[in-house]
């Protein structure tokens, strides 16, 4: 732990630090539990865990205001928890139960919450990018000053529709923040083997979209970058790109043995760069919280997560007539 890089920013208050810690820990513990339920066969199909990337959504959600929208890919559990969706509803969707956000009909990759302005949960790599710009288009059309966070990965950044969208978003000055969560691996293909230039954020320059790289293992850096991007969009200056360099500790999905990288590489990130440990040490060294305070937060989170798992197990499967509902409005 001695080599851990600690964030240098100190102008944050205790409450903010504690809430970052809590929110990130909730995602981590929730995902660990999801992995466990998957192992028990309670969650089926594909399940993509967010462990390691928590600082990205937690930092950006701290920059968001009421009415702002968000949309992402299939690695979506963290985004849902960070925007305030109920862990019970999310976990019950993972187990395919009636109490899930989509009544069990969407699953891990396809969840939505109109109430929280969470527009999915999309299983086709890159498809959420024009959709996100469309949400921003609607805000501009309706003449409000809301912004849309459109998340996608380093893999999706190679899809053609991303650049079709960059062009129109810039042309029409859409209030959309393109958040590239660069976790360095598109499934099993490292960025070095798939992407012609290392800095994906520069790909907006041909469309006159400003962009920057952000340390995604440091929630304070993410929050600072988010504030800047939101300000840009809300001022009507058009889209903004944040390439957030992050890392996923688990495989691409539950069935990925992750043989394309070494165990040492993963271990090094966990030990030296972990976003949760980073905030934890700031809290402790800055005397913002005691070990006991953090222990009680851990306990509180564990309770929420266990409760969501119990709910997800106890919630009934959808009624059979649900097969034929929600096909047409």
């Amino acid at each position, binding site marked *: 732990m001695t080599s851990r890089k600690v964030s240098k920013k100190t102008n944050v208050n205790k409450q903010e630090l504690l809430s970052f810690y809590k929110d990130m820990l909730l995602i981590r513990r929730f995902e660990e539990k999801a992995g466990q339920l998957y192992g028990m066969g309670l969650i089926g199909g594909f399940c993509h865990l967010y462990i390691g990337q928590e600082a990205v959504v937690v930092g950006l959600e701290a920059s968001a205001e009421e009415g702002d929208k968000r949309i992402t890919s299939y690695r979506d559990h963290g985004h849902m928890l960070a925007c305030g969706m109920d862990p019970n509803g999310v976990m019950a969707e993972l187990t395919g139960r009636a109490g899930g956000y989509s009544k069990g009909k969407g699953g891990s990759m396809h969840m939505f919450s109109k109430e929280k302005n969470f527009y999915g949960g999309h299983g086709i790599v890159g*498809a959420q990018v024009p959709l996100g710009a469309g949400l921003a288009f609607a805000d501009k059309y309706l003449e409000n000053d809301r912004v849309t966070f459109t998340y996608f990965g380093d893999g999706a950044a190679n899809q053609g529709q991303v650049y079709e969208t960059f062009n129109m978003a810039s042309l029409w000055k859409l209030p959309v923040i393109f958040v590239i969560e660069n976790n360095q691996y598109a499934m099993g293909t490292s960025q070095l083997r798939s992407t012609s230039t290392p800095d994906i954020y520069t790909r907006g320059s041909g469309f006159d979209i400003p962009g920057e790289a952000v340390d995604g293992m440091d929630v304070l850096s993410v929050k600072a970058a988010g504030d800047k991007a939101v300000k840009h969009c809300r001022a009507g200056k058009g889209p903004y790109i944040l390439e957030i360099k992050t890392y996923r500790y688990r495989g691409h999905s539950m069935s990925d043995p992750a043989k394309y990288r070494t165990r040492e590489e993963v271990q090094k990130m966990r030990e030296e760069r972990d976003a949760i440990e980073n905030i934890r040490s700031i809290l402790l060294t800055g005397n913002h919280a005691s070990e006991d305070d953090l222990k009680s937060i851990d306990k509180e989170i564990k309770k929420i997560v266990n409760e969501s798992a119990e709910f997800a197990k106890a919630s009934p499967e959808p009624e059979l007539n649900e097969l034929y509902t929600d096909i047409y409005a």
Partner: protein
Amino acid sequence: MTTEILMPALSPTMEEGTLAKWLVKEGDKVSAGDILAEIETDKATMEFEAVDEGTISRILVSEGSEGIKVNSAIAILADDGENISDLELSDISNEKQTLADTKNSKLKVETSTIESISEPEWTDATKVNQKTVREALRDAMAEEMRRDEKVFLIGEEVAEYQGAYKVSQGLLEEFGSKRVIDTPITEHGFAGIATGASFAGLRPIVEFMTFNFAMQAIDQIVNSAAKTLYMSGGQMGAPMVFRGPNGAAARVGAQHSQDYTSWYAHIPGLKVAAPYSASDAKGLLKSAIRDDNPVIFLENEILYGRSFDLPDIEDYIIPFGKARIWRKGTDLTIVSFGIGMQYALKAAEELAAQGIEAEVLDLRTIRPIDYETIIQSVSKTNRCITVEEGFPVVSIGNHLSAYVMEHAFDYLDAPIINCTGKDVPMPYAANLEKLALVTTEEVVSAAKKVCYR
């Protein structure tokens, strides 16, 4: 308190696996994320991580054991006692269960705004005007844009150029560039942007210069627009229209001449209209724009300039799922839609001259299909043929044949014949192109064949 560590399922299809290697031993303290063991699944060797912290008190399955069933205990973890008690847990879950039950009892009643629309009364006394299909489509969009500010038109050349086929003539002038939007040539992108805008409550009309170009965008149409209502458990959908010319034009070759009706008709979550006349084009497009679902609206370039009677009825709107009977007859039923109707009607005239009275049905919408009218007609005529310009394999006619066979088999006096385009890419040469399309002669011949004449 102790917890059993269970054999995990590590792929969607895994039922059992091999415990290849333990990376911990009894007495080891572990925390969440520590790798406990290596497990061979049906696909790969995976690392299995701890979820809880505690001490490995017993290992139940030794290294190298094969065929370990998923969910059987492989080790015991002793807890350091920070879990809330089982009692607390079950109380919480009971309470949440009650909440879930309450929520579930409010099952959404399936409604459709369109079902409440009834066919406007059009009698001999109704005043009619001659209008082209092109004008009818433009009028439909203009009327609906006046009615609802959330409706906008987006596509290539729809604004300043007035439409590649002049369907959007005058709309920019009336509604301005905020609501009549020229896009770059980027079908996948703007179809996705419009779909996203519809999720947020706008009602886009997406014009594809032709449906041939919509193949670039078909992922957004099918995976995003058509499926989101279902995948979101009814929370949000795509109230929008994708429209433009479909099928063969004239002498534009293989890539610009395909009929996509059966492609879109295949997809639950989409509605599909393919009008023939100007009045149906207008009434159905107005319906489509008001519909809360994604509608594929298939026009035809050859029909754009054709004039039809358009009744002088205010807010002329046609419901989806109702076929139009163009001609009454007793000898056979001809079912068609879109431009197929021109062959069906012409053939019916020629057949009448030969003493065969055909009943001609125009489906007008392919999803939903008015099966009732088809079955009623076939029950009366006992013979049926279908007409469309699309490819023969998995055509709309194939589907109708299967449906009629299943539901009116005893009424049929002859096998159903599907008249379709030929199973070839559209050729450019004038004589070959003519041969590739369905012809009136083929329809007449099929009709006579089912009548054994």
